């Protein structure tokens, strides 16, 4: 996904003189050609994430369309107040593109992990959040973001599904009983975990704004399960609002709040948070209880 981000953003910079890219050293080597061609629009501010956000706000105030990029924890967590005040409060937007996700950088430790990025943006108004589940979903998302001035966050990960699903709405991949919603790279693990369960599986790579009308249409039993690749329960409030008035029980699976003080691999951390197929299977089965298994 990071490679797709680099090639697509490089092309966007070539095609659209309104766009700019602001970096804080991360991935700067990959944009040296773009920087040579567009020295005034490819800006590496050094290891200064607060400034990266402020510069993004300033560029947008002059009518440009800034793309900002770093690890999620540096881009979002570190510069949270700049994101709050230098964009929405100024009535301007930007495209924030992160890598690292919740624990892609497992061996780097908690300093390089951001399970809380989407929850942080949920405290603010008007951010569209894309969590692509496949590299082939990334280009269209980045290109679409160049066509307007809204606030967009694109959360890239090294974890991917086996195939892409294009478009922002809910995609139904399997029809059956209780609804299981998988966000971004959680789709493949969810499909594997529910292989022989009588459930409906829906996928989205755009959890904000959440397609609440679509969600409500897909709910045919009182049970709903949401599986997100970031902090567990991040979407609980929106799902609850979407289903208000309908009797329902919900299970929200995602990354736990407790820091896992181990290194290892991304898959090790998925397992520790119960987000591997086996862990998801245990949680979903326990929640659904008596739902019959498919033959």
């Amino acid at each position, binding site marked *: 996904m990071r490679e797709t981000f680099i090639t697509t953003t490089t092309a966007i910079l070539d095609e659209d003189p309104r766009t*700019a890219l*602001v970096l804080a050293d991360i991935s700067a080597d990959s944009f040296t050609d773009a920087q040579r061609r567009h020295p*005034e*629009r490819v*800006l590496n*501010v*050094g290891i*200064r994430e*607060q*400034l990266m*956000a*402020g*510069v*993004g*706000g*300033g*560029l*947008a*105030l*002059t*009518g*440009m369309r*800034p793309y900002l990029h770093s690890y999620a924890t540096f881009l979002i967590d570190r510069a949270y*107040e*700049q994101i709050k*005040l*230098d964009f929405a*409060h*100024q*009535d301007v937007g930007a495209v924030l593109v992160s890598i690292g996700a919740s624990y892609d950088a497992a061996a780097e430790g908690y300093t390089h992990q951001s399970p809380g990025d989407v929850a942080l943006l949920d405290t603010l108004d008007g951010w569209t959040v894309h969590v692509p589940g496949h590299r082939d979903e990334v280009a269209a998302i980045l290109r679409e973001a160049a066509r307007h001035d809204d606030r967009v966050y694109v959360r890239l990960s090294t974890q991917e599904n086996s195939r892409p699903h294009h478009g922002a709405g809910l995609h139904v991949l399997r029809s059956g009983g209780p609804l299981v919603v998988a966000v971004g790279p959680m789709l493949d693990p969810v499909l594997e975990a529910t292989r022989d369960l009588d459930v409906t599986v829906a996928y989205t790579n755009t959890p904000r704004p959440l397609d609440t009308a679509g969600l409500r249409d897909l709910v045919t039993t009182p049970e709903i399960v949401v599986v997100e690749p970031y902090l567990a329960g991040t979407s609980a409030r929106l799902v609850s609002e979407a289903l208000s008035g309908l009797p329902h029980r919900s299970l929200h699976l995602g990354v736990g709040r407790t820091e896992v003080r181990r290194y290892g691999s991304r898959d090790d951390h998925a397992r520790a948070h119960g987000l591997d197929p086996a862990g998801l299977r245990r949680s979903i089965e326990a929640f659904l209880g008596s739902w019959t298994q498919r033959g």
Partner: protein
Amino acid sequence: MKLLSRVTADVKHSPSAHSTLDVLWVLYDRVLRITPETIDDPGRDRFFLSKGHGPAAYYAVLAAKGFFPEEWLDDMGGWDSPLGHHPDRVLIPGVEIGTGSLGHGLGIAVGAALGLRAQGHLDTRTFVLLGDAELDEGSNHEAIAYAAAVGLPITAIVIDNHSSTHGWPGGIPARFPGWGVSVVNGRDRDEIERSLRSVENRPRLVVAAL
């Protein structure tokens, strides 16, 4: 200034409201290429009030220059008033940024100057006004170092009324390596004007000492 006391009539006269008055007047009266008619002109000069607290003098100057009606000054902070105790660019004609949380304006000014340059507005000047206590915020130092490194011709004005809790040993200019520096009497309008008119191929700092 009559308009200033009109703003502060029912608020305690705070030093921060008055410390900026002469600099702001010189900016809007003698230096900035901006009028109420050109507030949306892409090539207008930009002035960013980073030190958004104590905006009474800012409001008084903007009203005096016709950016909004003087009557607005009578109800600062009121429910029906566009004028808050910290300015909001969405509500007030001519205000370029909403500030109040310290340490945001310089970074935004750097971004705006870069955006103006990228779009060919090479004669447009970018000014930002900070307080000496505001410099305590580390975010400023990210912007100070970067602006110097890339030779960005912005002008930062720091009002030095010694309000920083731990002070700035060695003086404020020592915190701006690589910048062109003027230290002026913050009440001497002619001296302020001369320093603000000066342009270099690098960022400039004007310390308005009080």
